[in-house]
């Protein structure tokens, strides 16, 4: 990305940043200052940048967004329909601001739990010592203006620490609620899974109104040896909103990261997921679904980086594109010279429901080791006529058959979500969006 100093739009976004109070964590203050410097040095990407070739974010730059000034006074009754039946461990952020009265921390439930689920600004000095080596360490913002912006505004956020050999039974729900127009929020998540620990985290972006706003998120997930993390990410922002997200995951020896990301909302959304298989025997499963219509654009960029031998990666990314919507998938699999015996597969399947729907897909395999097993492929198509005929031959009407197959296309990903109530909820959403009459 070329550098132009003094992008006036970025300057306008930085307004209010200087009013953030200093953090007791010296590293965090330095991080913020560095990030401000980077924002000042970078410019907004355009479609002339390779990484943004298919995603024109110029509509974003035509609007002005500021961090929230007056926090919406939400009650539990306003938002409880977003709560999970399975989970009481919940951190809620409203327009980027932590809402303790809507949240339940683990300490509220069990006094002696060693697991930490908390807001960043409430971190104890002990927590800070654990956080410090990781916060801002995994998502680099040197060349990433959105990650730099998020980091410049870093003061609140969700952090989770699961100590070694602890298995957290209930999913942890991180709920980010947008309520106001022209607001920029900068959600931040950090998950540190100790060796041999197990945890399921739901990162959930929702809105109460169909407004125009920007959600710019950064999540960092660190897995120590043998840790298992299930990461579910649901983006159901307002259809007028902009959603830009960066997530970086680092896997130590024999750890396992399983992620499912679902993009339903936003006018324009972009999700960058970088998974670093940093030591032997690490495994990841990275699945995704974009279900979009009207003039939505959903862009998913993933990079799975095999750096050491005997690591496994599995990826299935699907897009259902209706009306004049536009899906983008860019999936890079990197196999470095050291990463012998890599076992990797990637599949991107796209269903275009109209002649105006569009998908740009770019699977990328870069292999520098010689004894590896890698498979990848991408398909773009309409519904399969043989499948439709099969269903019709069983008495289902053309429209019922088409609806069922469209639903099924998405359900293959939804079915993999390990939280029953969420799965059911999303099944209903997919059902509604795929049923035409």
């Amino acid at each position, binding site marked *: 990305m070329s550098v132009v100093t003094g992008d006036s739009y970025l300057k306008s976004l930085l307004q209010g940043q200087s009013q953030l109070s200093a953090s007791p964590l010296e590293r965090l203050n330095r991080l913020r200052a560095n990030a401000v410097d980077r924002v000042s040095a970078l410019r907004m990407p355009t479609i002339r940048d390779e990484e943004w070739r298919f995603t024109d974010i110029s509509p974003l730059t035509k609007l002005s967004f500021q961090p929230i000034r007056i926090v919406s006074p939400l009650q539990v009754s306003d938002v409880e329909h977003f709560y999970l039946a399975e989970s009481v461990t919940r951190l809620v952020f409203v327009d980027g601001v932590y809402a303790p009265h809507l949240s339940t921390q683990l300490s509220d439930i069990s006094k002696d739990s060693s697991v930490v689920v908390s807001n960043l600004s409430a971190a104890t000095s002990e927590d800070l010592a654990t956080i410090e080596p990781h916060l801002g360490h995994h998502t680099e913002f040197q060349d990433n203006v959105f990650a730099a912006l998020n980091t410049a505004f870093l003061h609140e956020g969700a952090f989770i620490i699961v100590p070694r050999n602890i298995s957290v039974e209930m999913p942890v729900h991180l709920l980010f609620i947008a309520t106001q127009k022209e607001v920029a929020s900068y959600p931040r998540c950090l998950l540190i899974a100790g060796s041999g620990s197990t945890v399921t985290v739901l990162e959930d972006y929702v809105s109460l109104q169909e407004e125009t706003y920007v959600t710019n998120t950064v999540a960092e997930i660190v897995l120590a040896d043998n840790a298992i993390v299930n990461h579910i990410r649901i983006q159901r922002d307002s259809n007028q909103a902009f959603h830009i997200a960066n997530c970086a995951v680092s896997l130590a020896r024999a750890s396992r990261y399983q992620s499912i990301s679902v993009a339903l909302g936003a006018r324009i959304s972009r999700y960058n997921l970088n998974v670093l298989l940093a030591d032997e025997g690490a495994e990841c499963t990275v699945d995704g679904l974009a279900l979009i219509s009207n003039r939505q654009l959903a862009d998913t960029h993933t990079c799975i980086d095999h750096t050491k031998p005997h690591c496994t990666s599995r990826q299935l990314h699907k897009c259902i594109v209706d009306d004049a919507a536009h899906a983008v998938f860019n999936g890079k699999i990197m196999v470095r010279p050291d990463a012998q015996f890599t076992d990797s597969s990637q599949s991107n399947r796209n269903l275009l429901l109209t002649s105006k729907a569009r998908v740009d897909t770019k699977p990328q395999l870069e292999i520098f080791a010689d004894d590896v097993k890698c498979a990848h492929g991408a398909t773009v198509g309409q519904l399969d006529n043989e499948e439709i*005929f099969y269903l019709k031959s069983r*008495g289902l*009407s053309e429209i019922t058959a088409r609806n069922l197959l469209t639903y099924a296309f998405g359900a293959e990903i939804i079915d993999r979500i390990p939280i029953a109530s969420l799965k059911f909820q999303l099944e209903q959403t997919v059902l509604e969006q795929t049923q035409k009459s």
Partner: protein
Amino acid sequence: MIYQDSKTLLKVRGLYATAKGIEILKGINLTVKSGEVHAIMGTNGSGKSTFAKVLAGHAAYEITGGTVVFKGKNLFDLAPEERARAGMFLGFQYPIEIPGVANNQFLRLAYNKAQVQRNKDELDPLEFDDLVREKMKLLKMDPEFLDRSVNEDFSGGEKKRNEILQMALLDPRLAILDETDSGLDIDAVRIVANGVNQLANRDNAIILITHYQRMLNYIVPDYVHVMESGRIVKSGGKELALELEAHGYDWVSGEQPATVGT
């Protein structure tokens, strides 16, 4: 079983069909009455599967001549789903895999469509579960197949059993089973054939399409027809299948289009 007073279910006269401009069916005549079991045999490419798909209404084929009357109606006036609802069933040679659609969801959807057609009550998931498990016993199918996606990662034999399970649930008047025996081991052939036999009754009819005699050891046909180059070139009783097994298909080549059973 042949009953003299049976009603005619299917009457095919001079049926011609093409696929991508190539003529595949070249004047088929066939009459099927309720209670009967017909076997259609023939070499690869003789048009057997095309005939089955044309009857079921597959869009890849164009009808270029002839008539088909099913239960007194012009078959070609009916869309594929209407043929199914009128009681026609095609057991696919290669059942389609549908990832993401649970088998039980699919079976119940199809079953309830048939129930509406029969003016009977639709079943809720619990009621249906009882019914389908009962039917699965007939085919020695593991109930585990209910929770899996339709045919996905099923073995060849499991897919064919799933076809017959659908037949058992839909209770069709005319079942066309397209090479239901292919890809099955001896035990599976016996189980599937046994299932079909239990479903056969006075009011329905079965057309078995097969290469081999072995399925006919278990499902005894009333008529055997031999197809070649898009026509039925010979028809006879069950003994014809044995003769074919002994002499090969060359034995019937060049004979005139048959009139038996028409």
